[in-house]
C-alpha cells in the first residue's frame, strides 16, 4: 500500500498546472522596501564636511572632496563626501554615524550606467534621480547612537553653597568623567579652525582617552601657555562649531582642557614640557602689560631664547584675568600656577611700573630690541545719561579691580547694573555675593538693551546669576538716573524694540511709551571699555596707522607701523583671553622674524 502511494503521490504536483505563475513579469522598477540600503543621498546644506563618515567606512569608499560653491568657514570644512561604489558595501555605517544627520541612503538599487566612473559621485552635489526620494535607510530609532550624545555634567556647587563667598563653584571632572566625555569626540578637527589659537583639540582629547595627561599638557602648551585659566573661563568658541553638537551636546572642550591642566602638578611642568635648557640668544624684548597677550608673547619668546621683561603697572600679574574675572570663576591660585610657570622660564616682571609715566616707551625702544604692548581696555565707558556723573555711579571694571586688590568697595542695599554682557554678569554676581555677606540678602538687578534672546552674556551666566537670586531684566534702554537730595533713587528705562538696524549696525529703537523705574541707591555701568594708549608718544603715534574709528592697525604679526613695536590683545582683537594668547604667540613669531632680519 505504502509503495503504491509512493508512486502516485508525486503526481499531485500536476495540480499546479492550472495555477497562476508566481514570478514577477518585470522585476526592473520593482520598488525596494522603505528601509532599503540603496545609493546615498546627502543634504548638502546640512553636511559640514566633518569626515566622520569617511573614518567609519571599513571599505575606504569615501573621499572628502572640495565642492564648487561650498565655502570653507567656521564649522564647515567645505568638503563633501564622495562615494566610490566600486568599494561601497552598502552597510550604512556612514549614515548611522553621520554627525549632522545629513547623510542617508535611498531605496534606489536598479540604476545602471555603462560608464564605470559614474559610480563615483558626490551625493547631493551630483544630481541623481533619487535625490528627492523620501524612502531608504535612515539612522535607526529609538536610542540608537554610535557615540554619546549627552554631555557629562560638570559637578557644581549648589547656589546656596556658593552665593555667600567667592570660592570656585565648578569643581572639575573626575578621571572617569573626563574619559567618558573625551570618548564622545569624533576627532574631526573642525573646531581647530575656530579656536583663535588653533589648538590641537582632538589631539589633547585623545591624550585624555589614552590617559596620557603629560602628552596632553605638551599639546596644550604648544599653542596655549595659560591652560588652567582657559580651562576655566575660555569663551570656548570651539564648542559652538563642534560637529557632535549638531545632534546632541557639543564636547565639553573647555572642561577637558582644565582636566589636563588640573591633573598635572606644577612641580613637574618643566620636566614634562622639557623646558630645562633654553639657550639665551642675547636679545631683549620688553613687554608692556601682563595680561594674556603679554604673557603669551613672553612665553613663546622665552622658549626660543629671548630675554623678556614684563612691565606691569599693577601689583600682580594677569591683567583682566586677575583684576576683571571674579575669583569664583577663576581662583587666584590657578592664575598663579600658569603665570609662575611662565616666570620660571626666566621671564622677568617688574610690578608697579607704569609705562608712560614711570618709564617712557622711547626708553624701552632704546634699551630693547623690540617691544610688545598688550595693555588691554581698562577705561570704563559711560552711558552719559543724566545723573551718570553721580559719585554712586561706578564702572564695573573699576569695582572688579578693587575687589581683586582686596579693597573694600561700596556695596548698597539696592543696586542696578546697566549692561547685558559677561562683564555685567560678573559684577552682578560679585555684588550679589557681597550683599549676601553684608546684608544677608540680595537685591541687585541687571538690565540691558538687548532682549533676553540676544543678550551677549553666556546663557549659563544668566541662569547661574538668577540661581544666586540676582534679577536679570533685559530689553530696556536707560534714560536717566533720578537723584533726590544728592542721593540716587533709581534708574528710568524705556522699552528697547531693536538694537541693530537692517544693515546690522548699532542703532537702537525704543518705545517711549513703555517705561519702567528700577529703584536703587547705587548704579554700576558695564557697557564696554576703551583703551588707554597715552604712553605712545606723538612721534611714535605718527608712524602707526589708525583707521577712521581710531583703531590701531597691525599686520599679520601684530607689528605696527613703528616696526619695533608690536601690539596685541584686547586693543587689537578681542575680547577674550584666547585671542590675547593667539595674538601674543603670533607676535612672538613676528618679533623673532623682525629681530633676525633687521639686526
Amino acid at each position, binding site marked *: 500500500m505504502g509503495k503504491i502511494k509512493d508512486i502516485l503521490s508525486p503526481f499531485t504536483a500536476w495540480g499546479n498546472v492550472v495555477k497562476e505563475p508566481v514570478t514577477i513579469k518585470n522585476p526592473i522598477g520593482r520598488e525596494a522596501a522603505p528601509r532599503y540600503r540603496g545609493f546615498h543621498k546627502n543634504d548638502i546644506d546640512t553636511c559640514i*564636511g*566633518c*569626515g566622520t563618515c*569617511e*573614518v567609519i567606512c571599513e571599505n*575606504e569608499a*569615501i*573621499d*572628502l*572632496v*572640495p565642492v564648487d560653491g561650498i565655502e*570653507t*568657514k567656521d564649522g564647515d*570644512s*567645505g*568638503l563633501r563626501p564622495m562615494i*566610490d561604489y*566600486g568599494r561601497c558595501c552598502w552597510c550604512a555605517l556612514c549614515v548611522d554615524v553621520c554627525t549632522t544627520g545629513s547623510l542617508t541612503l535611498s531605496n534606489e538599487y536598479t540604476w545602471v550606467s555603462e560608464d564605470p566612473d559614474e559610480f*563615483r559621485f558626490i551625493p547631493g552635489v551630483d544630481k541623481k534621480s533619487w535625490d528627492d526620494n523620501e524612502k531608504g535607510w535612515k539612522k535607526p530609532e529609538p536610542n540608537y547612537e554610535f557615540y554619546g550624545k549627552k554631555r557629562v555634567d560638570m559637578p557644581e556647587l549648589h547656589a546656596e553653597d556658593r552665593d555667600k563667598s567667592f570660592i570656585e563653584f565648578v569643581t572639575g571632572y573626575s578621571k572617569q568623567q573626563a574619559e567618558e566625555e573625551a570618548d564622545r569626540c569624533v*576627532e*574631526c*578637527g*573642525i573646531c*581647530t*579652525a575656530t579656536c583663535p*589659537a*588653533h*589648538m*590641537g*583639540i*582632538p*589631539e589633547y582629547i585623545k591624550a585624555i582617552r589614552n590617559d596620557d595627561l603629560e602628552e596632553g599638557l605638551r*599639546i596644550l602648551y*604648544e*599653542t596655549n601657555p595659560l591652560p588652567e585659566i582657559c580651562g576655566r573661563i575660555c569663551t570656548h568658541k570651539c564648542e559652538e562649531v563642534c560637529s557632535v553638537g549638531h545632534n546632541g551636546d557639543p564636547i565639553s572642550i573647555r572642561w577637558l582642557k582644565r582636566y589636563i591642566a588640573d591633573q598635572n602638578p606644577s612641580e613637574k611642568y618643566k620636566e614634562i614640557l622639557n623646558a630645562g635648557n633654553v639657550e639665551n640668544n642675547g636679545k631683549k624684548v620688553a613687554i608692556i602689560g601682563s595680561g594674556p597677550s603679554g604673557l603669551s608673547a613672553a612665553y613663546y619668546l622665552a622658549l626660543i631664547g629671548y630675554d623678556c621683561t614684563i612691565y606691569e603697572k599693577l601689583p600682580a600679574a594677569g591683567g583682566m584675568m586677575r583684576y576683571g574675572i571674579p575669583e569664583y570663576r577663576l581662583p587666584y591660585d590657578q592664575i598663579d600656577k600658569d603665570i609662575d610657570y611662565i616666570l620660571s622660564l626666566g621671564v622677568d616682571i617688574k610690578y608697579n611700573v607704569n609705562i608712560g609715566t614711570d618709564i617712557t616707551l622711547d626708553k624701552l625702544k632704546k634699551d630693547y630690541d623690540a617691544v610688545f604692548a598688550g595693555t588691554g581696555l581698562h577705561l570704563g565707558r559711560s552711558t552719559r545719561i543724566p545723573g551718570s556723573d553721580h559719585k554712586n555711579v561706578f564702572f564695573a571694571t573699576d569695582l572688579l579691580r578693587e575687589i581683586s586688590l582686596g579693597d573694600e568697595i561700596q556695596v548698597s542695599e539696592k543696586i542696578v547694573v546697566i549692561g547685558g554682557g559677561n562683564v555685567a554678569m560678573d559684577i552682578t554676581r560679585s555684588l550679589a555675593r557681597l550683599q549676601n555677606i553684608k546684608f544677608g540678602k540680595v537685591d541687585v538687578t541687571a538690565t540691558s538693551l538687548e532682549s533676553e534672546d540676544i543678550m551677549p552674556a553666556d546663557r549659563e551666566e544668566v541662569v547661574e546669576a538668577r540661581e544666586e537670586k540676582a534679577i536679570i531684566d533685559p530689553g530696556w534702554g536707560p534714560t536717566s538716573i533720578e537723584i533726590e537730595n544728592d542721593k540716587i533713587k533709581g534708574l528710568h528705562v524705556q522699552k528697547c524694540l531693536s538694537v541693530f538696524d537692517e544693515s546690522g549696525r548699532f542703532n537702537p529703537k525704543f518705545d517711549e511709551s513703555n517705561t519702567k523705574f528700577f529703584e536703587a541707591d547705587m548704579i554700576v555701568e558695564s557697557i564696554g571699555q576703551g583703551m588707554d594708549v597715552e604712553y605712545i608718544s606723538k612721534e611714535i603715534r605718527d608712524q602707526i596707522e589708525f583707521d577712521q574709528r581710531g583703531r590701531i592697525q597691525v599686520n*599679520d604679526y601684530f607689528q605696527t607701523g613703528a616696526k619695533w613695536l608690536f601690539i596685541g590683545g584686547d586693543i587689537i582683537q578681542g575680547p577674550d583671553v584666547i585671542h590675547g594668547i*593667539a595674538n601674543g*604667540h*603670533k607676535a612672538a*613669531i613676528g618679533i623673532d622674524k623682525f629681530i633676525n632680519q633687521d639686526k
Partner: protein
Amino acid sequence: MKDLLERLNTKYSLTDIEYQRDNLVFLTIRKENTIDLVTHLRDYEGFTHFVLLSCVDWIEDGKFQLTYFLNQPERKYDIVVRTMIDRDNAEMVSAHHLWRQITTYQRELREMYGINFPGSPGVDENFILEGWDEIPPMRREFDTKKYSEDTFFPREGRKTHDPASYMKEKLYPTEPTTAKVNKTDE
C-alpha cells in the same frame, strides 16, 4: 567544573585559569603536556567533542598561542586549553590521531601561520593558498593592505582631504597650530 579543575591541577600544572562564563574556562599549560592533557580530557573526562583548533599570534612576545577547544557534551561545558609555542621555527606535536578534523586544522595552521606539525597527514599540502610565496598570511607582520596595494591597482583619480588640515590651508595657512594631520591624504 571546579572539582574537575582541581583534579586536573593535581596532575598537570595549569596556569592562567580564567572563567569567561560558568561553563567556559580558559587555561594555559606547558607545551610538552598539552596533548597529554587534551587526550586525558577526551578519554577520562568526557570531552569527546572537539570544537576548534586555533592560533593567536602574540608577535610582541615572540609566541604563538595554540588554542584547543574541547567540549563535554554530557555536562555541557567547555575547556579551552592554551599553550604558548615559540614563533621561530614554530612546531607542535600533532594531535591528528585524536580527532579526524584536526588534520585539516593542522594543515591550515601550517599554511596560514607556518606552524609545523610533524607527522600530521598531508600537513604540507596546499590548503587554501596556491602558489603563495609570501610569508604565511595570518601572521601579524603580514600587511594585507600593503599586499593588496602592491598586487592590485588602485582606482585612478581618488584623493581625499583631512578636514582639519584642509581648513588650515584655507583659513589660516600661516598661523601656528598643534592640529596634527590625523589621516594621511591618499
